[in-house]
């Protein structure tokens, strides 16, 4: 497979390298490429360029020129992504070498192939393509998925590193290189002080793409990550300013620079940085406002962020403000409101689409970085220059980081550790942004442009490849604190909130205005004004974080249910898929709510329950919770919400004892449980009948009821539709089921537990008409295993299932309606109930 892909790549490139001539989009910067060499030319040779005279009707014609540009673009995207596929196929390689490094190497190979075919580098990474088509989506993704709280908490530190650190890097690098030049270490090159400073400024900035690519595989602790990453994003403000300022200075020439110009330079920094951020902020607000009104066009709702984000970027570029800052803050600002306003499915769409674009672009950037290197024309080697640059970059980075951290630690609550500082300095990677800026240099003004490009490329390769490869072992060797995988727990959320409140109070008591006070004030302001303005009223009501955490956990558990149920019983579910569709149409609303779970089950894979499946199942749980949430928030369907909340996680003591993790009570009264099961099936059949269902095939009906049983375990809300005497038992059943995620359907049998309703007691002894399957009773007895898991598993072995199914195809009657009728008659004859057994009483207290 890898070999096939490689062959495909070669063929594609040689082929495209041939016909690809002037005016392809990706080769603006490369010099004359009108070579007529390499394979594939012949096809072009005499082909009509559109204007040739035709003498006869062509059946098909070769229209390469018309599709050339888009074709090449698409082809290159495909090639880059295939490279990524190739790389990811060897997972044990990516353990040691970060993907970005491997992509660059792929780029080398590809570049070599094209060079071999064309003798010129027809495809290079041009600044225009890079800055306009490849970079924005990466930054948008970064801003959109930025952990806001962490970011703003550490904003002070990030700004210090970004602004002061970058300025220091630029100045020190430029000046030292100039000093070395004067000292003669570099031989004879024509670079003046200003040009050195320009060069320094373009190499100073830590690159967000490279940082993301390398750090994502290392998983350092979040403070460290946000520091480096935040710095890499925010230093664009500085980089843009420095680059433009020095570029202008170089153009003006050294003589014209006086204090006024320098002051203007400093002012321009503030304008560019704050202007860019403000612009991004405005666009973020725009998006939030927009999503507030897009309820009717949910289908294209996800698209707005992309369009508006890109416009933010371009607008900032147009006004010569910092485009990266603009799109970053756009993403940061609109996160919260967008996610609240938009429909759940839209949010998911945005999340995945943005990752696709960002990751795809990143891949392409690295591949092209590699390709661009294979170009003889740009390489100028000057040992002193290059080596000194490398050395100074590392040294000054370390110095800068340590010095700034020392200053910061005096004001930080939790100081940044020494080891973290090492990683921070080592993680100052340069990347494609530096290369893009270098290529943008004007070669008329800067004679040694090629030297600078070569040096930049070497620096980029060194940082991405060498530092990228060694970062992971370094992190492990130094025992850097890693990111902790925290699961969402209610108690943590609760405690965090308690801490927040407490801290605000303590700050107030001790009479100082601190961090927490400010944050509290901002939160209040935000809640009162901004949310009111930017969020839909319905969304605003849903704001409570604690409840959302609860909601998430509920969702997770519900999905666990379905998964477990599928895994256990999916063999049964596969059959008769078609019949269910009929069911859905035929039955009225009540039943259709029970259906969604089953439909999802049916349509899913057999037997496996891979985690990915969660994504296909969401319609199940989301519907489940949409129901509950709608009921909750809009108070329309209070019943469903009430019931779900109450019975999914209600902690009635009797169930607590039954379903606690530490001990395990066995239901000794299996028969009763069976009875419940039967009765509920009965009632369902009744209601089906009463709904004028007509003649549905009995087999499917029974199957449905069994599923329904299961689904009813899952959807407490369905209870509202059951007949009255069903309610109570199902409430117990549901709450029982609700409590423990690992209880898919076993619960059905457990439904007997804690059930007060004495009406069921007399059925303990199966009457002749009670069709309690003995195998079910057996299963109950066997399930004395202490772990609930085991209990869960038991009924769902295939053997059990088969036996269960035979319940439906019983000897008695194939027409389950008739069955129902029979049982109905029996039920009416029940003697008055005996008192419930004492154990139940004790538990129910």
């Amino acid at each position, binding site marked *: 497979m890898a070999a096939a892909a490689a062959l495909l790549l070669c063929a594609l490139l040689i082929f495209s390298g041939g016909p690809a001539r002037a005016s392809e989009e990706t080769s603006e910067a490369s010099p004359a490429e009108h070579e007529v060499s390499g394979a594939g030319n012949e096809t072009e040779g005499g082909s009509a360029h559109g204007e040739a005279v035709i003498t006869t009707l062509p059946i098909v014609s070769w229209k390469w020129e018309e599709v050339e540009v888009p074709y090449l673009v698409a082809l290159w995207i495909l090639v880059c992504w295939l490279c990524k596929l190739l790389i990811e196929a060897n997972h044990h390689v990516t353990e040691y070498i970060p993907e970005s490094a491997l992509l660059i190497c792929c780029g080398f190979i590809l570049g070599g192939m094209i060079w071999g075919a064309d003798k010129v580098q027809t495809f290079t990474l041009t600044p225009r393509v890079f800055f306009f088509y490849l970079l924005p989506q990466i930054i948008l993704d970064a801003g959109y998925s930025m952990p806001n709280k962490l970011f703003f908490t550490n904003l002070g530190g990030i700004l210090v590193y970004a602004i002061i650190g970058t300025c220091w890097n630029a100045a020190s690098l430029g000046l030292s290189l100039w000093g070395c030049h004067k000292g003669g270490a570099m031989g004879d090159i024509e670079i003046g002080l200003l040009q050195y400073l320009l060069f320094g400024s373009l190499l100073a900035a830590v690159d967000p793409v490279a940082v993301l690519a390398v750090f994502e595989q290392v998983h350092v602790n979040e403070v460290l990550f946000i520091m480096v990453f935040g710095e890499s994003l925010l230093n664009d403000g500085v980089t843009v300013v420095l680059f433009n300022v020095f570029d202008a200075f170089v153009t003006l020439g050294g003589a014209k620079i006086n204090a006024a110009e320098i002051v203007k330079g400093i002012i321009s920094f503030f304008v560019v940085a704050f202007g860019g951020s403000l612009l991004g902020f405005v666009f973020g607000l725009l998006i939030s406002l927009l999503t507030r009104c897009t309820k009717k066009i949910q289908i294209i709702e996800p698209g707005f962020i992309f369009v508006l984000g890109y416009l933010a970027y371009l607008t900032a570029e147009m006004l010569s403000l910092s485009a990266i800052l603009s799109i970053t803050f756009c993403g940061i600002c609109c996160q919260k409101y967008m996610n609240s306003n938009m429909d759940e499915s839209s949010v998911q769409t945005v999340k995945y689409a943005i990752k696709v674009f960002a990751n795809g672009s990143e891949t392409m950037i690295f591949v092209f970085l590699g390709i661009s290197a294979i170009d003889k024309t740009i390489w100028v080697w000057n040992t002193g220059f290059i080596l000194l640059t490398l050395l100074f970059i590392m040294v000054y980075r370390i110095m800068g980081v340590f010095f700034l951290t020392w200053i910061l630690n005096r004001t930080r609550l939790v100081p940044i550790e020494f080891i973290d500082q090492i990683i921070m300095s080592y993680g100052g990677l340069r990347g494609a942004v530096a290369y893009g800026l270098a290529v943008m240099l004007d070669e008329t003004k800067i004679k040694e442009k090629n030297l600078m490009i070569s040096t930049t490329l070497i620096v980029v390769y060194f940082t991405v490849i060498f530092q990228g490869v060694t970062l992971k072992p370094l992190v492990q060797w130094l025992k850097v604190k890693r990111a902790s995988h925290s699961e969402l*727990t209610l108690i943590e959320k609760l405690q965090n909130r308690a801490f927040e409140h407490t801290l605000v109070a303590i700050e107030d008591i001790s009479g100082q205005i601190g961090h927490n006070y400010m944050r509290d004030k901002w939160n209040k302001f935000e809640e009162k004004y901004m949310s009111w303005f930017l969020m839909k009223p319905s969304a605003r009501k849903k704001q409570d974080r604690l409840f959302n955490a609860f909601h998430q956990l509920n969702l997770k558990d519900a999905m666990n249910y379905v998964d477990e149920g599928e895994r256990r019983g999916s063999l049964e579910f596969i059959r008769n898929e078609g019949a269910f569709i009929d069911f859905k149409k035929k039955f009225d609303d009540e039943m259709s709510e029970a259906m969604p779970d089953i439909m999802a089950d049916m349509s899913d894979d057999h037997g496996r329950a891979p985690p990915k499946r969660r994504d296909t199942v969401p319609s199940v749980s989301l519907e489940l919770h949409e129901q509950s949430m709608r009921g909750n928030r809009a108070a329309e369907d209070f019943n469903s919400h009430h019931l779900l909340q109450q019975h999914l*996680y209600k902690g009635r003591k009797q169930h607590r004892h039954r379903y606690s993790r530490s001990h395990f009570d066995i239901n000794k009264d299996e028969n009763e449980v069976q009875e419940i099961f039967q009765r509920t099936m009965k009632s369902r059949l009744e209601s089906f009948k009463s709904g004028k269902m007509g003649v549905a095939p009995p087999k499917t009906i029974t199957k449905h009821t069994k599923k329904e049983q299961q689904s009813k375990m899952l959807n407490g809300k369905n209870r509202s539709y059951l007949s009255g005497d069903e309610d109570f038992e199902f409430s117990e059943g549901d709450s029982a089921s609700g409590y423990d995620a690992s209880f898919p359907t076993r619960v059905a049998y457990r439904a007997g537990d804690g059930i007060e309703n004495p009406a069921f007691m007399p059925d303990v002894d199966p009457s002749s008409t009670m069709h309690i399957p003995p195998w079910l009773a057996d299963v109950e007895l066997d399930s004395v295993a202490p772990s609930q898991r085991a209990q869960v598993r038991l009924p769902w072995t295939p053997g059990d299932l088969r036996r269960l199914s035979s319940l439906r195809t019983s000897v008695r009657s194939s027409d389950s309606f008739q069955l129902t009728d029979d049982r109905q008659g029996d039920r009416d004859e029940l003697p008055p109930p005996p008192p419930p057994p004492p154990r139940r009483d004790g538990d129910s207290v």
Partner: protein
Amino acid sequence: MGSRASTLLREEEIEEIKKETGFSHSQITRLYSRFTSLDKGENGTLREDQVNFRGFMRTLAHFRPVEDNEKNKNPPTTEPLNSRTNKLLFAFRLYDLDRDDKISRDELLQVLRMMVGVNISDEQLGSIADRTIQEADQNGDNCISFQEFMKVLEKVDVEQKMSIRFLH
């Protein structure tokens, strides 16, 4: 300490407080002036609960940032008030109103009610409370003991989340 004379802070007291809480001299004096400004009744205590200055300082001491280097210089005989355990104990006591060393469901409900918005109904609150207890409760007594509390919060960065910088 109900007399006006106690409004002046004596040196020995400052030293004692310093040793007990770890605040610096200037911090103590600063907080003392704050205490007196809060102490409207000028009787040396805050509110009816009779929190005197020592108690005030002791409570505030819980919120000092954790410092590791302190331990190296002179390991304190008793655990400093701002250690992680003590911070958590303080937090625990916020919930445990009846001081029985257990957070029962009702105590949790009270705190929850204060912390969530008004949109949440009582049943939902009850469910949240139950689930919260379920997450932490290991011995099945339906209450959260301090050990369970500590265990379930072991991943939380208490040192940072429960500290403020005291101005000098």
